[in-house]
């Protein structure tokens, strides 16, 4: 539960660290912007490229904070295939991967969806995991909890004899304990994708690595079709209600910038994000008065938070009395996702269409009259 | 008009009140002080002078026994009542950057001021007068950290005067004054006794000063019972001699002087009518000669304009005291 929230904040914090570079200048677009050359059929994700050759696939994972640099360069081929022409054999990854340690929910969630849960041997921060399947496997000892972020139990990891470890990179580099071992590490900066479909597209890489390419591609195409259909539906709405997002945290309110994941999704849902003019993909801390200045009259307020005991307007007000001054609060128009009760982090990446539908159903109820919310719904007063 | 200013009964002084088994510095003290009076507390260093003063002003708890101020037991007096009974002058000075002389003296009026501490007309007048008495009126706007030690001390004495208490207690006030300063201090303190009717109690290890100026002496020495009286009485009774009894130091009751006795006991007889007789005695004492009335080998007489030194059968003529002494010393081989 805590971990699920931490993921969002992880995003925010890592992004905030690059805030000065992120906001204020137009985002330095990746060098390879051209669809056809960039990563072959990878169309939305900018964090990695995947080029299919005759006998192998060439995967490059880019440094999200410096797109012209790479975090990893791999040659992926099935077991048994000869790859003598690759000079550095250490860069070869044999598929399907066995004994995966997935340190983040956005990694093992899609694996479960692909039906590859059997390949996972280790996860992190088990106490915060809600997924019933994973919990059962942890209790049965079929999965091992290797510890919390920044303090992984490396010995436990080594004892699992993992074939590969997926980790979340940060600007400082590989987490210290992991770098000293000889485990195969693959960075997984999917959460830094600013396009909802870009995040989903990482399932293709998972598909490649587990030998489930076809299934992964089909899955993605389904997601893409649904998402784009919904986006078209939303675009047909005549009005675009105003909306803003998030809350203050220990006195600082991080506001997603105009090219961020959230801003993109809100725009695709047919709403007008009041901070869309802020340049950048990350979040930037603003003074609450400044936020009020822009968002006081916004019609909707989107909040995603872990609330195992449920959430309410009085609770929000008690957190910070300034929240009560916003129109969206006064009019009880808070769009809420309880990350402790929904699979926001585990399934969220692969269900952007679901999130989009939820949002459209709120912004334009007449467009999706029979919709059943999965992630987001209006918080009841 | 005399009043019982201070009285103690079986007073045992020392540090460590409340702790187990501390031996007091001196045997229990019984004393009575009637004012007005000019009293000096004398004793060698470490005898407990400061301790006694702190105990009778309430700054230190007695180990045993009682102190009465103005007829009331010290224990029962509130800080305010004590403030009206006794004021102190110590050897420590504050180092605040901004305090001025007049500020410090004005603090002496604190026990009389109302809640906010703003002085009234009367208080201001008393402060002025106190500064005048101590001859520091011209310094009143100066910051005390810029004064000399002597001036600082006068400031604090002025403050004690402004406090208008029947008893003023001073701890080693003469300690860092130069000689004229010491005399000035003694005259000032006496003036306070005579003109203002105050009782002054001060401590000093400078015995010469104390013997010459104080009306009464309190003598304090480790292990020896407390003794008090006028300098003359104590000298005649031999108290002073025994109080400062150290080997090779003797006390001359006639002159109230101490002198070393490690030199040979030579005697010399002096004619009664010698000019500057006292000076000659002093010079002789310095060189180890004491006066005697008995027949002795050396004797001095005067026959204008020379001193005559008789050594047995021989007589030397000495025009001045220096020659006299030299002549005597020439006999020491």
């Amino acid at each position, binding site marked *: 539960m805590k971990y699920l929230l931490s993921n969002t904040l992880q995003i925010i914090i890592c992004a905030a660290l690059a805030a000065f570079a992120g906001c204020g200048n137009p985002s330095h677009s990746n060098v390879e912007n051209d669809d056809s050359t960039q990563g072959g059929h990878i169309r939305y994700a900018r964090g990695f490229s995947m080029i299919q050759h005759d006998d192998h696939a060439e995967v490059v994972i880019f440094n999200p904070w410096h797109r012209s640099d790479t975090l990893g360069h791999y040659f992926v081929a099935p077991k048994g295939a000869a790859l003598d022409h690759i000079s550095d054999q250490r860069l070869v990854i044999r598929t399907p991967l066995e004994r995966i340690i997935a340190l983040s929910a956005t990694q093992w969630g899609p694996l479960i969806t692909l039906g590859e849960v059997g390949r996972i041997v280790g996860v992190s921060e088990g106490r915060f995991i809600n997924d019933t399947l994973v919990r059962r496997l942890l209790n049965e000892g079929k999965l091992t909890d290797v510890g919390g972020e920044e303090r992984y139990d490396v010995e436990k990891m080594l004892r699992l004899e993992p074939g590969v470890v997926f980790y979340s990179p940060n600007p400082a580099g590989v987490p210290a304990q992991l770098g000293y071992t000889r485990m195969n590490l693959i960075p997984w900066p999917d959460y830094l994708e600013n396009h909802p479909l870009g995040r989903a597209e990482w399932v293709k890489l998972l598909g490649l690595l587990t030998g489930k390419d076809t299934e992964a591609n089909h899955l993605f195409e389904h997601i893409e079709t649904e998402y784009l259909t919904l986006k078209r539906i939303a675009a047909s709405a005549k009005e675009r209600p105003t909306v803003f997002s998030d809350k203050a945290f*220990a006195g600082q309110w991080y506001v997603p910038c105009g090219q961020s994941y959230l801003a993109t999704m809100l725009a695709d849902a047919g709403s007008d994000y009041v901070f869309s003019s802020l340049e950048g993909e990350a979040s930037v801390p603003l003074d609450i008065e400044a936020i009020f200045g822009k968002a006081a009259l916004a019609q909707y307020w989107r909040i995603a938070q872990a609330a195992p005991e449920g959430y309410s307007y009085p609770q929000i007000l008690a957190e*910070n009395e300034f929240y009560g001054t916003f129109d969206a609060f006064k009019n009880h128009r808070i769009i809420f996702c309880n990350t402790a009760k929904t699979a926001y982090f585990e399934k969220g990446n692969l269900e952007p269409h679901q999130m989009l539908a939820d949002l459209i159903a709120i912004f334009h109820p007449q467009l999706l009259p029979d919709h059943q919310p999965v992630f987001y719904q209006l918080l009841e007063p | 008009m005399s009043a019982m200013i201070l009285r103690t009964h079986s007073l045992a002084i020392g540090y460590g009140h409340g702790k187990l088994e501390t031996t007091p510095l001196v045997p229990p003290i019984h004393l009575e002080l009637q004012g007005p009076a000019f009293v000096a507390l004398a004793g060698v260093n470490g005898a407990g002078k400061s301790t006694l003063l702190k105990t009778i002003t309430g700054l230190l708890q007695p180990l045993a026994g009682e102190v009465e101020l103005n007829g009331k037991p010290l224990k029962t007096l509130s800080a305010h009542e004590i403030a009206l009974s006794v004021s*102190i002058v110590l050897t420590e000075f504050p180092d605040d950057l901004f305090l001025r002389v007049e500020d410090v003296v004005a603090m002496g009026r604190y026990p009389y001021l109302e809640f906010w*501490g703003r002085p009234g007309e009367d208080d201001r007048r008393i402060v002025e007068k106190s500064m005048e008495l101590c001859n520091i009126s011209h310094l009143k706007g100066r910051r005390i950290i810029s004064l000399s030690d002597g001036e600082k001390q006068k400031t604090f004495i002025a403050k004690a005067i402004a406090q208008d208490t029947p008893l003023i207690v001073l701890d080693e006030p003469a300690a860092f004054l130069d000689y004229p300063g010491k005399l000035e201090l003694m005259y000032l303190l006496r003036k306070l006794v005579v003109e203002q009717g105050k009782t002054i109690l001060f401590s000093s290890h400078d015995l010469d000063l104390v013997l010459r100026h104080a009306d009464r002496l309190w003598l304090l020495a480790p292990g020896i019972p407390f003794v008090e009286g006028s300098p003359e009485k104590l000298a005649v009774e031999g108290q002073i001699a025994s109080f400062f009894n150290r080997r090779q130091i003797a006390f001359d009751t006639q002159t109230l002087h101490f002198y070393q006795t490690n030199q040979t006991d030579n005697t010399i007889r002096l004619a009664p009518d010698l000019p500057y007789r006292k000076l000659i005695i002093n010079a002789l004492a310095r060189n180890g000669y004491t006066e005697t009335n008995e027949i002795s080998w050396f004797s001095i007489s005067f026959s204008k304009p020379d001193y005559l030194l008789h050594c047995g059968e021989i007589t030397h003529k000495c025009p001045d005291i220096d020659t006299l002494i030299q002549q005597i010393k020439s006999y020491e081989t």
Partner: protein
Amino acid sequence: MSEASLRPLPLILLLTTLLLLFFVLNLFLGSVVIPPKEIWTVLLQHSDSGSAYSQIVYQYRIPQAVTAMLSGAGLAVAGLYMQTLFRNPLADPSVLGISSGASLGVALLLLFSGSAAGSLMAAANLAGQTSLMLAAFAGAVLILLFITWLSRALPDMVSLLIAGMMIAYVTSALVGIAKYFSQKEDLQAFVLWGMGSFSNVGLSRLPFFSTMVLLGILASFFLVKPLNLMLIGERYAANLGVNVKKVRFYSLLVTGFLTAIITAYAGPVAFIGLAVPHLARIVFRTGSHLILLPGCILIGASMALACNLLARLPGLDGNLPVNAITSLIGAPMVIWFILKHKHLFHRNV
């Protein structure tokens, strides 16, 4: 060479005017640009009409300005009394470890609540801001009680000062351990709290906070006379009728209380408690608390308001942490002041 001390009344009037000026500026300037005429209209309404501008002024700017003013005044007073009590010009409200106690309270809360502000509130069913404030206050008060108890057991202020510093070290160490076991977000929350902020007190919390601080400042007036006497030394003060032990105790209580309440609501605000008493002494050329107390109140409040203003200048949509501003602006100012008045520090003049 005689040097008359400056007459205080004109200076007090001048400082009051300065204070009012900064207060008004804090109302008219902020991260949102509002035309002055609008603000004037809003103020004339005397209450929040619900419009956006009105809300900004009444819910955000007024509480912030009042909080800054009271915090600055309270801390300056606490600093002044600390310096007198300990006869140490480097003493400030944090010297007794009270703000460290507040930090410890916050650190422990963040550690044991398990997480960032979000699930903290959900799990513990406590509101984030309130629980932070309560934790800070609890930590501060605990240390304060310990210190006052110590002050009766220890013979003099120097030992108490050393004890206080040791307490500060211990609490810092405990905070370090708590930090070590905390998650990233909690660390960040703790760091952010530690930067100080005047904007966490909203209109609903303002009355309680103001009352408490004003009570503390009022109580401090009762100590003016005895503390003046302590300037020449505790022995002389005792001889002049001051109950030194009682004065010590109450001074500690008052300054500790002020520090605790302000740290609880605004975080540990640095620098004001240390520097303002010195500024006041230089401005008024006196050591008398009768003048320095109002002086510190005025200068402290003005300085806090000025720093708050700088932290939220329009055009700077973020807000800089208060502690950074107070030290950055304040320290050079003090140095300049000292240089300008260095003749006051010569001892032989």
